[in-house]
């Protein structure tokens, strides 16, 4: 809203201003079109707002409400329990372990996917034979539907009958007795390997796009000054990739916190709760055990954790990029 609607002060402060205002008073904007404009805005915005309200706001509100009740999914929601559901979730080892697994995936992504993605992006940025083909191959897993990829990997990882066990045996090694997904200590790393296979393509794609925007002149200048390929990457490409890396980190972090599909297809959180994530916890408590109050509390906690992380990241990391842009 601008100052158009505010009543004109009785005593003009400045002559120029007074004239302008007087002029305007002579020819005021008609009331009708403004009223119409508002109606038009309302008309165009209402459907979108209504959809948001029904499919975004309402579910969020009802999840929060659910988290304060003991409710089995039908009948009246009238057994108010206060913060009890939150207490139960936070004291449940399965949930705290799940949070830990989520953060392990976040950290492992940074340690493994970031350097690997950078390296691949830098290599693929060079002029090499079959560049396009190689780029496609790296990106294909990201395009495959997560559930399909999960089912394929589940079959590959079958103990005894799976391709991977077979390959390991051919090399002369012994695959784990209970299989990669059936051994509690190996299950989470295995899931992470599959996740890396799936999402490395996105990192490479983003980094490649970032590298495209680094002007060639800089590399040329560096070359003239006698810098090698490696030095040029480290001193020029890497610093200029900063904003891209920070954006990727953000996406990767949020994705890891919400990680569900792949885990559900591969292990359903098992064996022995070794691969649970917050999302699998709330699905198993909610739709499977009908403890909708607990699931509601868990989903609110998931939201809070994700929100706080995103906020902190925005304030402390991404702000730098915005300031640079300004």
């Amino acid at each position, binding site marked *: 809203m601008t100052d158009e609607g505010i009543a004109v002060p009785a005593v003009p402060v400045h002559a120029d201003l007074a004239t302008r205002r007087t002029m305007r008073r002579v020819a005021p904007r008609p009331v009708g079109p403004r009223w119409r404009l508002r109606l038009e805005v309302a008309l165009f915005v209402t*459907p979108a707002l209504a959809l948001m309200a029904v499919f975004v706001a309402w579910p969020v509100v009802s999840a929060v409400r659910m988290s304060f009740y003991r409710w089995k999914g*039908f009948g009246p929601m009238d057994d108010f329990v206060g913060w009890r559901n939150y207490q*139960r979730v936070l004291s449940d080892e399965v949930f705290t372990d799940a949070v830990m697994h989520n953060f392990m995936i976040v950290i492992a992504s940074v340690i493994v996917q970031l350097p690997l993605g950078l390296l691949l992006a830098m290599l693929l940025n060079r002029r090499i034979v079959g560049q396009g083909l190689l780029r496609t191959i790296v990106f294909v897993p990201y395009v495959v539907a997560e559930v399909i990829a999960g089912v394929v990997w589940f079959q590959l990882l079958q*103990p005894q009958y799976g391709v991977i066990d077979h390959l390991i045996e051919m090399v002369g090694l012994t695959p784990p*007795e209970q299989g990669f997904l059936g051994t509690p200590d190996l299950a989470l790393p295995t899931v992470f390997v599959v996740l890396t296979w799936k999402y490395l393509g996105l990192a490479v794609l983003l980094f490649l796009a970032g590298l495209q925007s680094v002007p060639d002149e800089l590399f040329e200048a560096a070359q003239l000054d006698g810098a090698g390929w490696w030095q040029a990457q480290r001193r020029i490409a890497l610093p200029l990739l900063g904003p891209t890396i920070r954006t990727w980190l953000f996406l990767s972090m949020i994705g890891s916190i919400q990680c569900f599909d792949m885990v559900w297809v591969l*292990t359903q959180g*098992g064996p022995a709760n070794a691969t649970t994530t917050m999302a699998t916890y709330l699905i198993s408590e909610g739709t499977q*055990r009908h403890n909708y109050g607990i699931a509601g509390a868990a989903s609110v906690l998931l939201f809070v954790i994700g929100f706080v992380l995103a906020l902190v990241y925005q304030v402390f990391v991404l702000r730098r990029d915005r300031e640079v842009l300004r």
Partner: protein
Amino acid sequence: MRSKTRSAALAAICAGVLTLAACGGDDDSSDESGGETTITWWHNSNNEPGKGYYEQVAKDFEADHEGVKIEIQAMAHEDMVDKLAAAFQSGDIPDVYMERGGGELADHVEAGMVKDISDSASEEIDKIGGSVAGWQVDGQTYALPFSLGVVGFWYNTDLFEQAGITEPPTTLAEFNDAVDKLKDAGIEPVSVGAGDGWPAAHYWYYTALRQCSQDTLTTALTDMDFSDPCFVKAGETVEEILDMDPFNKGFLATKAQEGATSASGLLATGKVAMEMQGHWEPGVMQGLTDDGKGLGDKTGWFPFPAVDGGAGDPAAALGGGDAWAVSEEAPDEAVEFVKYLLSDDVQTGFAENDMGLPTNAAASGSVKDPALAGLLEFRDQAPFVQLYFDTALGESVGGALNSEIALLFAGEASPQDVVDAVQEAADEEK
């Protein structure tokens, strides 16, 4: 011009309101329009011959009852379960539908959604006998089980022969021998879909059934009190079985019945010699083999072996099934229809079409499959059929029990931990 816009806006708002209203107000099913009573019926026999058979059954009933119309919705089992859950949330429940009994039914009863049919169907209840217990809440009956199966070991008769096992084991010691013989013959003895939880949990249910007397068990399940030491012993017996190392490699991540590498798939393709599963196993195995025959005539069945020193009856069976329930607001004709579904005629046809294991004794002789007939014999001679514990306890407590048993299988929980976990979840419910 202006008024045109205004009326257009009004029309748009009205349209929005109408859409919302249409979403909310789904038509009630049991309308009585034009002197006709409509009964909605949901079932999961969506394949032939079951689908056609049920259509015929509905037609016969309509012919006998003037003014009654039955609206059938046949759907895949998973779809039906999802749609029923949604129906219970919205309160718009079909007149005749399937209940699995136990805690889930008790919740529905508590919410006032199921009709008490103890008096109106007393004759049928007497006829079915003890099996109806799983569908009773506080002594009142809310559904009539029409198919009831028991869990036991399905085995490959060829592989047993190869390993030199002449008689299926009847005690845990004999079971151990059989496992050893199969291993010596280079055959993986038993598959279990522990990745899905419940197939592993069935082992604990059965050992509890062997360790605890019927009284202890029934009281424990109704009062949700698991302090009797027999429940810890049940876990110890499971550990004993685990010590035999009988299960397929990677069983902790094995799925129950999806694909050739699932527990049922391994049995169906001859990769393992046996699997403990419910009465649906032959059907599942048929779906998992290319020729659609499953194990075919190599299919054998034996009950869970006796456990030495246990207080439980070795003839007691673990099982479960499906029952027809009538929603609270359904017309009286719906109850009549459910009674008709349990009649000698309909149950016999049900058995003849291989749709399940009839609960009406008059139809028992019509089950053709020899392995299933053996299972039926065991069921009918059992002193009682204990409903699957997770069903009996309800999803919340049952789910907690199953997940702790999964930890027991992974060697990460003790028998005492299992009892503690189920007790803790049960105390939350009280």
